[in-house]
């Protein structure tokens, strides 16, 4: 198995000024040179970092030291074509597998996981773009546990299953799979991912109650405790603008910025799929911008529905 693409180096300071670059450049050529220079230099730095980061690929993900009451969970998301994303999350003990994915999306700034009405997980990081449409064809996100050192196909409901310290969670997008243990596992080697000092499920006392308490509110808080304990993750809030707003940047660069800025998401061996990552990053920017117009649309549609229903009701009364 190719275990190349795993890294977890967060990109730090150079990213923050980027968000200001496009608006300043409007004031004229002279004042525009500085942000552009800054932009170019930061691209160079990021490319260098990405190049350096690929060197220790395959090494264990840095999760920090164990803290009582917290679980360090390595989440591997492999859509089968793009570079594998490997992320270590610090979550309260008792967090469920689904809450992990929500936290991961909040931390990386990617789209929230999409679940169908039946609870079926359809999309992670907005992949596949067709949503739940392909599930009928046997293509789906398969859940694996890599805690034992090999990937084991999971039959458990991730909404219920609670994680322990040192767990390795794998999500692999299976194309036309059988829906059983024979389906393709995540590409990285599971054995290399587990923190050496894993504490396992030491849930004396508060484990279950913590899980129940965090059930309602936790998923919406982007990052939460996990973000706070990881300094690299602090920049995740400022991610949206720059990734979509770099004019004329080479797709490879854009992708390394996009994922690099997203606080330590793993990047990249295959450069062929870089455009895909760039596209995803720009989609992310667009969706955040249209949040306000979306609410106007929702209210408008609801009003139309109400008006039509009222008109139909009145007509029915009149003819009855």
């Amino acid at each position, binding site marked *: 198995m190719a275990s190349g693409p795993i890294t977890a180096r967060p990109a730090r300071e150079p990213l923050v000024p980027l968000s200001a670059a496009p608006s300043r450049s409007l004031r004229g050529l002279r004042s525009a040179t500085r942000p552009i220079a800054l932009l170019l230099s930061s691209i160079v730095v990021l490319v260098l970092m990405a190049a350096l980061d690929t060197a220790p690929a395959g090494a264990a993900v840095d999760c920090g030291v164990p803290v009582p009451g917290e679980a360090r969970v390595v989440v591997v998301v492999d859509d089968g074509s793009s570079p594998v994303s490997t992320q270590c999350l610090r979550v309260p003990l008792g967090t469920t597998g689904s809450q992990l994915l929500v936290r991961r999306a909040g931390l990386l700034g990617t789209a929230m996981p999409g679940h169908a009405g039946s609870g079926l997980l359809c999309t992670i990081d907005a992949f596949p773009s067709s949503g739940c449409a392909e599930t009928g064809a046997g293509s789906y996100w398969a859940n694996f546990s890599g805690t034992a050192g090999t990937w084991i196909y999971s039959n458990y409901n991730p909404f219920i299953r609670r994680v322990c310290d040192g767990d390795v969670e794998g999500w692999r997008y299976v194309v036309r799979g059988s829906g059983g243990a024979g389906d393709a596992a995540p590409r990285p080697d599971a054995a290399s991912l587990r923190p050496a000092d894993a504490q396992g499920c030491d849930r004396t006392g508060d484990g279950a109650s913590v899980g129940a308490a965090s059930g309602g509110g936790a998923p919406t808080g982007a990052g939460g405790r996990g973000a706070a304990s990881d300094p690299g993750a602090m920049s995740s809030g400022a991610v949206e603008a720059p990734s979509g707003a770099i004019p004329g940047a080479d797709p490879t660069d854009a992708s390394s910025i996009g994922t690099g800025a997203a606080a330590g998401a793993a990047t990249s061996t295959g450069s062929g799929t870089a455009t895909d990552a760039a596209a995803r990053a720009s989609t992310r920017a667009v969706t955040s911008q249209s949040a306000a117009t979306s609410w106007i*649309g929702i209210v408008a549609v609801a009003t139309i529905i109400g008006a039509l229903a009222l008109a139909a009701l009145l007509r029915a009364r009149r003819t009855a």
Partner: protein
Amino acid sequence: MTGPVDTVVSVGSVGARPDGRRRIASRRMLHPGAWWIWATALAAAALRTTNPLLLGLILAVVAHVVMARRTDAPWSRSFGGFLRIGVFVILVRVVFQMLFGVRIDGTTLFSIPSVTLPSWAAGVSLGGPVTLEALIGAACQGLRLAVVIACFGAASSLCSPYRMLRALPSALYEAGVAITVALTFAPQAAIVSRQVREARRLRGRTDRGPAAWLGSAMPVLEGALERSVALAASMDARGYGRRGVTSRRLRRAISATLLLGLCAIAVGAYGLLDDTVPAMLRLPPLMLGAAALTAALVLSGRRLERTRYRADPWSTPEWIVASSGVVALITMIVAGRNGAALEFSVYPLAAPSFLALPTVGILLALLPAQFAPRPALAAPAEFEVAA
């Protein structure tokens, strides 16, 4: 049995009269095929989404058009019944989610006793905590089915089943009885249910509530089937589905071609729905089936000696109605291809996303409320005035 039928059919078919053309053109029955295309396209659009905004919009559009353009024929009252079936479907889906549905994390409303299953059945759950997310997801899935039912209810309350029978391609006359029963059962049920309710009221019993429902279900079903079969028999006796003079060999050839075509289309349709079957079993059988059906149609149509009395025209209003439904479906498909979130994600719970393209497309399906001609009234007086 034929009371309301006769009046409506005769009034509806004044379109061919040379005099008073404008007056007649403004009030006539739309071709039933147009309504069925419109409704089927909207149902197909509803099947592609669980977004409650889009589903609610489709439902509102369909209800509005039905109320604007239904006749006062007995079957036109059936739309409310279809809506009630839809509500029932949603309730059943929600209850099943509570009992056997996959447990979804989130805001727990209440818990029901659960059974712990062995590890090989870990994906199945019986009972357990019931969350708001799970209920909303189940309600949206139920709503999708309810909207599909409402679409077909709209078609069957907007157009006369008898005119639909007339509009059928002649090759299908071979299966005359079956098709008559299939097409007229729902409208007949609407007529019978009204009669049964009236009878209950006359006897001094209530016609509301579950008791009335249980009491009238059997007579309604039985009566509707009886009336459909009686209609089929009388049509058969009057020569519906009769062939002209054909040799036995040709007749057999037509039947064999028809059967082959239908089987091939069934295989192809299954292949389209289930993507795991090989590609060879998808498009080729569909095309083979379509070719065989066309051949059968042409062969049998040539042999059928049949004239049309006051044929339903297919003109601009029919094109507008049919294409407005198809446009709604196309916008839904295009939006899905472009990665719009047609699936309403229940976890983490968020407001349903507003999708401009399908919204506009579905609103276009409102056009029939304005552009379909007003239905001819069933009252004989109106017929006289129009003539």
